[in-house]
């Protein structure tokens, strides 16, 4: 598939993921134990036989760049294979930050121009799914399309979050609505586009439009040569904390249709971490694990149920974690209990503390739209003091330590931040 250049838009802030994206771009957020969100798209690219990809970064790109490395984890490194990371500094005057998806591609037109390709595949690194892009490319060619957009049927109540396509019987898009409150179609854009290279270059060079959904697609529709490629299968926009949590929990369900090993999802196991391999999972004499995903290097002396554990998590004696996501090298000390939590990396949860154990419907007071379903989020490198009690819908910011707790209890819906240095 050398005739196709791939642009992976990985600049998304993903602000609704709140403190999970305080230190990293959304595509770099850990997912499913050992993966990061971008792994699904990178693996789809590699598994579709595509060989050249440019990753457009912008927001907090360090952990993303570290993760992608030279691309060899996805077999995208070699004489004819490459991952190029393109940061936003192609402008001639100072730094030109990307103003939108189309603007990001415009600023990197040179990448597209210098490659020997007829088509450009534009994807984002924000979704969890398994798709063979080569079928979509064939679809595009068979219909002699100028533009093909990947679409999926979504529940009608969600259509207002998406660009939606109205199509005729040949899958030709006749009309387009961008985040309409009263959408006429539930065929939602997946943010996956195939363009004829010359057409894309022409569109981007002759206009100053900055966004594909809002500007470029409506313009292309005027020429009646835009098609919708229908995708059906597992696809999740994990842009909210609740959606992120649910998609992780899908790993535990045999019938969810989500199986990263079957999908041949690859990741970089060595990024930014150890100089040796994570040893086997150790489940001790009195350890209990049920209905959970457990990664290498975990040590389980306590109880784990309905949870997803990343590498190196330690659950000490008498500790209990349920319905939670616990990321790399976090520790639940003796007797701690954690329920419905998203625990970022390297968090220490002190002895006997209790987090999210009571069901409470008080939404988060500061971010009610981010957190109202009873999840609690603990930021990276936070240390929860012994015997603390933390409610539901709470946010404990990154690097908070015992010294930041005024009392040992945090009411449901409350947040706690690192105190300012005097």
């Amino acid at each position, binding site marked *: 598939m050398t005739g196709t250049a791939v642009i992976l838009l990985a600049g998304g802030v993903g602000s609704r993921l709140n403190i999970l994206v305080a230190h990293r771009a959304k595509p770099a957020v850990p997912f499913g134990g*050992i993966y990061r969100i971008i792994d699904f798209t990178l693996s789809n690219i590699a598994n579709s036989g595509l060989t050249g990809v440019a990753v457009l970064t912008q927001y907090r790109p360090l952990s993303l760049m570290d993760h992608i490395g030279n691309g060899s984890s996805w077999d995208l490194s070699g004489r004819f294979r490459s991952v190029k990371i393109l940061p936003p500094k192609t402008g001639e005057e100072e730094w030109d930050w990307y103003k939108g998806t189309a603007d990001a591609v415009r600023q990197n037109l040179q990448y597209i121009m210098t490659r020997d390709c007829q088509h450009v595949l534009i994807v984002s690194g924000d979704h969890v799914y398994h798709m063979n892009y080569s079928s979509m490319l064939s679809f595009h060619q068979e219909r002699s399309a100028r533009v093909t957009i990947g679409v999926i049927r979504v529940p009608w109540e969600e259509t207002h979050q998406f660009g939606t396509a109205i199509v005729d019987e040949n899958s030709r898009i006749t009309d387009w609505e961008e985040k309409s409150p009263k959408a006429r179609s539930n065929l939602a854009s997946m943010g996956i586009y195939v363009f004829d290279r010359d057409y894309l270059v022409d569109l981007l060079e002759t206009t100053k439009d900055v966004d594909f959904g809002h500007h470029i697609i409506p313009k292309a529709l005027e020429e009646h040569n835009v098609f919708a490629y229908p995708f059906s299968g597992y696809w999740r926009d994990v842009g909210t904390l609740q959606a992120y949590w649910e998609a992780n929990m899908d790993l535990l369900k045999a019938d969810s249709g989500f199986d990263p*090993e079957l999908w041949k999802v690859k990741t970089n*196991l060595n990024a930014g971490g150890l*100089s040796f391999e994570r040893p086997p999972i150790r489940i001790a004499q009195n350890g209990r694990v049920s209905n959970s*995903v457990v990664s290498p290097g975990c040590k389980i002396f306590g109880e784990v149920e309905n949870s997803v554990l990343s590498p190196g998590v330690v659950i000490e004696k008498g500790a209990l974690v349920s319905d939670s996501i616990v990321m790399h090298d976090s520790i639940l000390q003796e007797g701690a209990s954690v329920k419905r939590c998203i625990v970022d990396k390297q968090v220490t949860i002190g002895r006997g503390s209790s987090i999210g154990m009571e069901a409470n419907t008080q939404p988060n007071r500061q971010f009610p739209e981010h957190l109202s379903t009873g999840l609690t989020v603990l930021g990276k490198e936070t240390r929860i003091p012994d015997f603390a009690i933390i409610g539901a819908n709470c946010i404990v910011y990154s690097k908070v330590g015992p010294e930041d707790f005024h009392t040992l209890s945090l009411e449901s819906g409350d947040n706690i931040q690192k105190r300012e240095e005097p």
Partner: protein
Amino acid sequence: MILAGGRVDDLGVLTLARPKSAMPFGGLYRIIDFSLSNLMHSDIERVGILSQYKPHSLLEHVGNGESWDMLGRNRFAAFLPPFKGINQSDWYQGTADAVFQNLDFLRTHRPEHVLILSGDHVYQMDYREVIRFHNDNKADLTIVFAKVPREGAHRFGLAEIECERKEGGRVIQYLEKPETPAFDWASLTIYVFTPYVLLEALEANATKDSHEFGRDIIPWLLEHNYNVYGYKHDGYWGYTRTPREYWQTSMDFLGSTPRVDFNDWQICTNLSHGNIRDRRPALVGHSALIEDSLLYSGCRIAGTVKNSILFPGVRVDEGAHVEDSILFFNAVIKRNSRIIRTITDENVTVGVNTQVGEQDSEDLSIIGMNTRIPRDTTIAAGANVHPDLGPAQFSKHSYGQGETVQ
């Protein structure tokens, strides 16, 4: 130089298709990983691997050496296979002959010391300490020893070491596998040579009939008054020469206070070998019960697992029971089967309602690679089941104590 060619008959069906150094160990690793990781952590990154018995699995595992950081301008893990010389014969005629035939390798790289290891033990060691000891004593050869009980010591090279200093001392006497052991220190077959001494000893040995470091080279050096020193290793040392030893060494990593923690040893392996890299994290089902066990990515457990080690991709179905066992990559244990005190090699499938091994017997059962045991079969303790057998080749429903199936 790592001597990684040996097959070792005692391991039976487990080494039919691979040298011992390529045997899986500890739920993730291959035995040679311990030597290679020790070398890496000791900053010794110019390594020759002497291999001759069915090297495919070992070659694939070591690859270009990058897993142990042995890939770079002056870093390498080079395979040194037997070759046809002008005067020499093709195959290595012993450990010393293997090194002798590769003297060009040493002449090319002109090292200050030559460290010779066998790639088939489980241990952690900083070889720099041994080399420092070697230099401090101006030794010609330093051998690493560990203290062993006299009982069973007849299987090792044994030495008397002068003045019981903590670190070690001069080797006064050395006997290779004596019938009645008289010394406490057993050779771990780790040697540091001063290169010209190695050369002299190998050249003197070349005209003889036997070419082994333990049997021939060490006695020759002592006889000719070279400085031979013994360095005492007091850390963990695991043998894997027989199924029982292999099993026991594996079990040392389990229990309420395991004798060894892989985290401390920082072992590296090649995650591309056996496709470990691309496996999903382990999936533990609602009905699973796992106690005192090690497992890895790609495992799917719905049954009971006790006191066992499961390699990547092992599946234990609901109602199945695995205890005191070691299951290599991709074993599938189907419903209501019982696997007790058994080692299954890679890709073994055990059918529904089948029993392998027994709790009350000392004997271990061993199932060869790719074998598929049919449903409703009983295989008593101590069985040796050959590789690549299909259900049709199991003519009986029941196999007795110690029976061989082939």
